[in-house]
C-alpha cells in the first residue's frame, strides 16, 4: 500500500516521443485505471512505473521514495501481464513462489505464503499443475497469485483481461475488484476498454497521443467530460457529438449539416457560439416537444432498445429503456433535457462552462443507470 507519484514523465523512442511530460498522483490504496485508444502511451507509462523501460526524463516516486532508474526488482512492485507470462517449465506453486525463491525465503515460509495466496484465488487444487494444463481464467489467476505473494506496494495490471472471452471477463473484473477491497493495495490498471475502466476504477486517467486528457472519478468523466475526446470515449454507445451553432435566443441548435434541434429549455451560455453539442444516447426521451427524426435501425438488447435515428442529415444513436413501440422507418419526436446537454468549444474542443444543473438540483440525481 503506498501512494504513487508520476512527475513530468517523458519517454521517447529515438525521435518518436510517446509520452509528453505526464503528471499523475495516485493515493495510497487507490485503484487507478489508465485508459485510452491504442498507441496513447498507457502501456508505456505502466512499464515506466515498473522499470521495464527507462524514462527519458521525469521522476517516479513510490511511497515517497524516488524509484526512477531502479531495477524492477528494487521497486517493490508486482505486475500481471497481458499474456500472463507464466513460466511454462514450472508448476503453479513454483510460479507463485518464484519471487520468494529469489529472495532466499526458506521453503516452509514460501509454501505458507503460496498456499495463502492460492486460497484467496481458489487455486489450491491446481498447485501441482503446469501452465499448459490450465484454462485462460486459471492462468490469469495464477498470474495474480504470483503478484499477490510478493506483497508489493503497488500492483500493475497490463490489460490482463484482453485474452479472455466476454463472460469470463465480466467474472474476472468482479474478482479483481473484490481482491482490491480485500488487500487494499494501490493498483494501476491499463485497459483500452472504457467499460472496464468505468466499473473498476476509483480514478480514471484518460490518455491520448502521450498526453493526459482528463483525470477523475468514473462519474466525473461521465457527467463532466473535459473535452470532446473524453466525451466520445467514455460511455457506450458513444455520445453523439455534433458540430454546429447555438441559435440566438438559446432555444435551438443548428448543426453544420443543417439539422435544427429544438431545446427543452433555453440555454444560458454558449448562445451564438460555434460549438460541439454532445447528446448521450441514454439521455434521449420520446417527447412531443422534441425534434423530428426518422428511425433507421432498431436493435433490441433485451433490456434496452438501441435506435439509429436520422435527423435531417445527422445520424444519431439513442438508447431507450424498456420496450417502447418504435418501428424502423417511422418518424418519431425525441428530445434531450437541456440540463443533460454537453457543450464544447468548436476550436479548442474543451468543455464550455459548468453543465447547467437545474436550480437546486444536485448533479446526477436524475441520472439513469
Amino acid at each position, binding site marked *: 500500500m503506498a501512494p504513487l507519484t508520476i512527475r513530468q514523465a517523458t519517454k521517447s523512442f529515438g525521435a518518436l516521443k510517446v509520452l509528453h511530460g505526464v503528471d499523475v498522483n495516485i493515493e495510497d490504496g487507490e485503484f487507478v485505471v489508465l485508459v485510452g485508444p491504442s498507441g496513447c502511451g498507457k502501456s508505456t507509462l505502466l512499464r515506466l512505473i*515498473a*522499470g*521495464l523501460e527507462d524514462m527519458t526524463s521525469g521522476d517516479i516516486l513510490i511511497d515517497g521514495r524516488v524509484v526512477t532508474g531502479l*531495477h*524492477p*526488482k528494487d521497486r517493490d*512492485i*508486482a*505486475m500481471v*501481464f497481458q*499474456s500472463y*507470462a*507464466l*513460466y*511454462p*517449465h514450472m508448476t503453479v506453486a513454483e510460479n507463485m513462489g*518464484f*519471487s520468494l525463491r*529469489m*529472495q532466499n525465503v526458506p521453503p516452509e515460509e514460501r509454501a505458507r505464503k503460496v498456499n495463502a495466496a492460492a486460497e484467496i484465488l481458489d487455486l489450491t487444487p491446481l498447485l501441482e499443475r503446469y501452465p499448459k494444463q490450465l484454462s485462460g481464467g486459471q492462468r490469469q489467476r495464477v498470474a495474480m497469485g*504470483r503478484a499477490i505473494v*510478493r506483497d508489493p506496494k503497488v500492483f500493475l495490471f497490463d490489460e490482463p483481461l484482453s485474452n479472455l472471452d466476454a463472460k469470463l471477463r465480466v467474472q474476472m473484473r468482479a474478482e479483481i475488484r473484490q481482491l482490491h477491497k480485500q488487500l487494499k493495495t494501490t493498483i494501476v490498471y491499463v485497459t483500452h476498454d472504457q467499460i472496464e475502466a468505468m466499473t473498476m476504477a476509483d480514478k480514471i486517467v484518460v490518455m491520448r497521443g502521450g498526453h493526459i486528457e482528463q483525470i477523475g472519478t468514473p462519474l466525473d468523466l461521465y457527467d463532466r467530460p473535459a473535452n470532446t475526446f473524453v466525451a466520445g470515449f467514455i460511455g457506450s454507445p458513444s455520445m453523439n457529438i455534433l458540430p454546429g451553432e447555438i441559435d440566438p435566443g438559446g432555444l435551438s441548435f443548428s448543426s453544420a449539416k443543417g439539422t435544427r434541434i429544438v431545446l427543452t429549455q433555453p440555454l444560458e451560455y454558449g448562445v451564438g457560439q460555434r460549438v460541439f453539442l454532445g447528446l448521450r444516447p441514454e439521455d434521449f426521451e420520446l417527447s412531443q416537444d422534441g425534434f423530428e427524426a426518422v428511425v433507421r435501425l432498431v436493435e433490441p438488447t433485451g433490456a434496452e432498445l438501441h435506435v439509429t435515428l436520422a435527423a435531417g442529415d445527422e445520424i444519431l444513436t439513442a438508447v431507450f429503456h424498456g420496450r417502447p413501440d418504435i418501428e424502423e422507418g417511422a418518424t418519431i419526436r425525441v428530445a434531450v433535457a437541456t440540463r443533460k446537454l454537453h457543450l464544447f468549444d468548436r476550436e479548442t474542443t474543451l468543455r464550455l462552462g459548468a453543465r447547467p444543473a437545474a436550480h437546486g438540483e444536485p448533479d446526477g440525481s436524475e441520472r439513469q443507470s
Partner: protein
Amino acid sequence: MSNHALTLGGRRNGYGLFLALCLVTFVNLVPLLWAVLTSLKHPADAFTIPPTIVFEPTLDYHRKVWFENDFFRFLTNSLIVSLSTVAISVPIGSFAAYALSRIPRRSAGPILSVLFTIRMFPHMLLAIPFFVMGTFLNMIDSYPLLILALVAINQPFTVWLMHGFFLDIPRDLDEAAAIDGCNAWQAFRIVILPLARPGMTVAALFSLLLSYNEFLFALVLTGAKTKTLPVAIASFGGEDVSAWSLSAAGAIGIMLPIVVIMVILQRHLVRGLTAGAVKG
C-alpha cells in the same frame, strides 16, 4: 504430415506420394547401400561390371578396419575433438544467440549477416591461416588447436540455429523474471535456458555432426597423435584395388557411432526441429 494431408487429393494421391518419397529415399541411399555391399565383398566381386548381386559375403574387411588398423584410437580422437567442440560452442553460442534475440532486430540483423558470411567462407581459405597460426604456436597435432578451429568455423551456424529458438521465447518471461527479482544472468539461467533446451539439443547434434565429419581441417592440423577418423579412413583408399573393400568397410565404420548417437537422440532432434517449424 498428418494422414489427412497425405490423402488430401484422395487415397490414390496419398499412395502415389508415398511411393515417390520411397523412390527418392532409395535413390539417396544408393551410395550407402553400395558401400555396405562393397564392404562385405571380396575385391574381385566388388569390381565386376555388371555388379554382382549374389556373392559370398565376408566380414574380413570390417574386422580389419576395427581391430587391425587402430580404428579405436582414431575414433577416440574424433570423439574427443567433436564432443569438446560441442561442449564449448553450444554454451558460448547460446549466450550470443540469446543476446541477439533480445536486442532490436535492426541491430541483430547485420550481426547475423556477418556471422553468416563467415560461415560461407570456403574451408580451404580458412585452413591455411589456421595452419600458419598453429605452426607458429607449436600447436600442430594437438587437440586444442583442432577444437578451437572447429569451434570457430561452426560457431556461426550454432548461433544462427539457436537464435531462432530463443526468438520464440516471449520477452514477457524476461520481464516477469526481472520483476520477480532476477538479474540478467539469473533470468537467463533459470527461466530462459530450460525453455531453450530443444533448440540447444538440435544445435549440439548438428555441431557434433559437423565437427565429427570435418576432413580438411583435420587433415591440415592433425598429425600422427591426433589423427581423426575421416583422415584415417581416407588413407585406406588409393589405386590398390584390393584396398577398396577395406575403404568401404572404413566408411561404414565411421558412420556407425554417429548413427547410434542419432538414433538414441532422435526424439530430441525431431522435437527440436519441429518445435521451431510449427512456431514459424
